[in-house]
């Protein structure tokens, strides 16, 4: 239960970090400008968005059947396929495989799903070194941090922060220049790539018709991780399956445009299976781990299932007024921002139970979502579930919060009697009269004392 109130404390503290807020505002603002520009240049955007949405509706509607087809195709292509019921199963499979194959170093393409299952600590504990090869991920790994944004892992850092980090850790002279910092990381990573025995990546799409795993990225590290090491593991959430190869283009048209404001990512990797007898490169073995970890529970709930349409583009984080002020670490889970707040309570349980409440329901996330997920509606649904939903048992709210909720309950009961409310209102206005200064009250009692810590409170008024 501690988890729920912890978020409250951490978020409230994060806001005070003005430096962080400035970095977030700059970075997310830049993102949003790029996105607006690329969209404006592409008149078909809304049409593609509708199509993509319809394909997701179909995919999730036929999930069972499509997964079966996908698994058959993957096996026919020579992949080894495992369905993992939860994070622990997925972790054990991957760590066990690495052990059996005598792996010492794993190179990782950027994958939030590996964060979800906490793969890196498990590999490290088994004496295997995981190395993040996406530049942002590499940076946060050097800092022993987790990614603070699902597609821009080091969004909370400035180029100066990264310059200092590299000077301390890579033995180079301090420089804040992105080109030189990138070159330094690239040089380091190159030798690691050459010696790694295993690659682990995620997948953005899995095509049931052909058994093709599609991985989009910008740095070529995903391609390197998936083609050079002898063993490749692709970890994918089970919602990533789409029916046909022809569906893919509709997603590629909108994904990069919404995520980074690019027309297309620099690399679009198509993974079919292990190296064929007549091929000169590619991994010897390809293992595909299909992860459930709470997704079937989402599927079973008619409101929550829409969250499974998510492409993990990260746009809802950039536009979220809450995320923009506290950053990703405050959320305490790998998936942050609006999408994180709706999926995390299902994936991570109590420690994320309070996240759906951390929103003003402003709806900016739904506006930008490339597949139009109605995030505010799902947040409301989660709040209802956390408040007891149909079965009456709610999460334990921090004391200040449960007091507020009780006050609200009392208000809701009284407000059913308008005449009484109006009389009460008149009495309140009279009582407040001596306390107010030009229409505002400086200190309020009860639940509203949290309001008047930073803001004056509008004095109650009654009508003549």
């Amino acid at each position, binding site marked *: 239960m501690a988890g729920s109130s912890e978020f*409250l404390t951490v*978020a*409230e503290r994060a*806001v*005070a970090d003005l430096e962080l*807020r400035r970095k977030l505002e700059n970075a997310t603002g830049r993102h949003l400008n790029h996105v607006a520009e690329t969209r404006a240049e592409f008149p078909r955007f809304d049409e593609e968005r509708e199509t993509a949405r319809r394909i997701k509706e179909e995919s999730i509607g036929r999930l069972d059947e499509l997964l079966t087809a996908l698994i058959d195709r993957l096996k026919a292509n020579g992949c080894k396929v495992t369905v993992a019921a939860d994070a622990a199963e997925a972790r054990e499979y991957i760590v066990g495989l690495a052990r059996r194959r005598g792996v010492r170093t794993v190179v990782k393409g950027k994958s939030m799903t590996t964060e979800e299952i906490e793969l890196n600590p498990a590999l490290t504990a088994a004496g295997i070194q995981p190395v993040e090869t996406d530049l942002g991920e590499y940076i946060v790994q050097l800092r022993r941090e987790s990614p603070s944004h699902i597609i821009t892992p080091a969004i909370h850092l400035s180029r100066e922060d990264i310059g200092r980090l590299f000077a301390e850790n890579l033995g180079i002279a301090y420089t804040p220049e992105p080109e030189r910092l990138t070159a330094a990381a690239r040089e380091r990573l190159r030798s690691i790539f050459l010696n790694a025995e295993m690659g682990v990546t995620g997948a953005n799409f899995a095509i049931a018709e052909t058994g093709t795993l599609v991985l989009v990225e910008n740095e070529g590290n995903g391609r390197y991780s998936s083609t050079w090491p002898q063993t490749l593991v692709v970890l994918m959430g089970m919602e990533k399956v789409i029916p046909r190869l022809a569906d893919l283009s509709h997603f590629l048209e909108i994904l990069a445009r919404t995520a980074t404001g690019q027309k297309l990512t620099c690399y679009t990797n198509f993974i079919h299976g292990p190296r064929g007898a007549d091929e000169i490169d590619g991994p010897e073995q390809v293992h595909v781990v299909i992860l459930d970890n709470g997704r079937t529970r989402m599927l079973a709930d008619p409101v929550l299932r829409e969250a499974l349409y998510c492409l993990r583009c990260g746009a809802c984080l950039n536009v979220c*007024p*809450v995320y923009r*002020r*506290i950053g990703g670490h405050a959320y305490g889970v790998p998936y942050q921002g609006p999408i994180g707040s709706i999926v995390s309570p299902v994936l991570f349980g109590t420690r994320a139970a309070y996240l759906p*409440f*951390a*929103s*003003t*329901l*402003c*709806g*900016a996330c*739904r506006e930008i979502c490339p597949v139009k997920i109605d995030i505010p*509606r799902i947040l*409301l*649904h989660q*709040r*209802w579930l956390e*408040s007891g939903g149909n079965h009456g048992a709610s999460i334990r709210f921090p004391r*200040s*919060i449960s007091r*507020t*909720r009780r006050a*609200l*309950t009392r*208000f*809701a*009961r009284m*407000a*059913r009697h*308008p*005449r009484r*409310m*109006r009389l009460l*209102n008149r009495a309140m206005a009279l009582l407040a009269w001596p306390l107010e200064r*030009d229409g*505002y009250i*400086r200190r309020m009692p009860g*639940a*509203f004392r*949290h*309001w008047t*810590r*930073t*803001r*004056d*409170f*509008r*004095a*109650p*008024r*009654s*009508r*003549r």
Partner: protein
Amino acid sequence: MLEVQLFNTCLAEQFFPAAIEATVKVLEALKLKVRPMRRAFCCGQAPFNEGLRAEALGLARNFLGAALPGMPIVVPSGSCAAMIRNFYRDLLADEPASLKQAAALQPWVFELGQFIVNVMKVKYLGARFDHTVAYHPSCHLARELRAADDTRVLLANVNGLKLVDFRNPEECCGFGGMFAVKFPALSTAMAQDKLERIRESAAELLVANDCGCLMQLGGLSHRNHLGLEVRHVAEVLAAR
């Protein structure tokens, strides 16, 4: 004479009675007979947003009982109008009788500006207000009702009023109902950033259609002596 029902909303009744009086004035100037919904006080949005559906249900039933069918309901709030138009569907999903009643009512529910521009087909009200004004399009008005521009047009046509632009006008003010009390620092940070952007625009006054936003932005402005006063849109539209 065409008749409309006026739903005051709980925040306006308790904190902005002047907004209600101004709304009545604006509607009467359009030759409408205004019929206040005395038997309704709150639409139930606050408990609904908190996940307290049983409490919200009581208020929604109350509202439905107070409404006359087949007569427009004007609401001087984007978020309350959105609650009734968009969210009653979810709230009442398990109550077929109320759901039917709400569905019949929904096309008759309008936020004030939405009603004036789309139903009355009026864009100029003959108001006079000699001030430089920043308009905050509230979240539910903009993204649930998609009616933020109706009010913008009405304001732009007020004599003497200078409407100024500011950066990122559609970002939330941080009110969010109980959010403002549960996450006071976060909520205040959102309002602070918003007020800073508005101050860059040299506005003397901030207007919005939602009393929640006005309490939030006005309360912070007053605490920090920013000198930026807040007004409900209706007060500006009723000014002569």
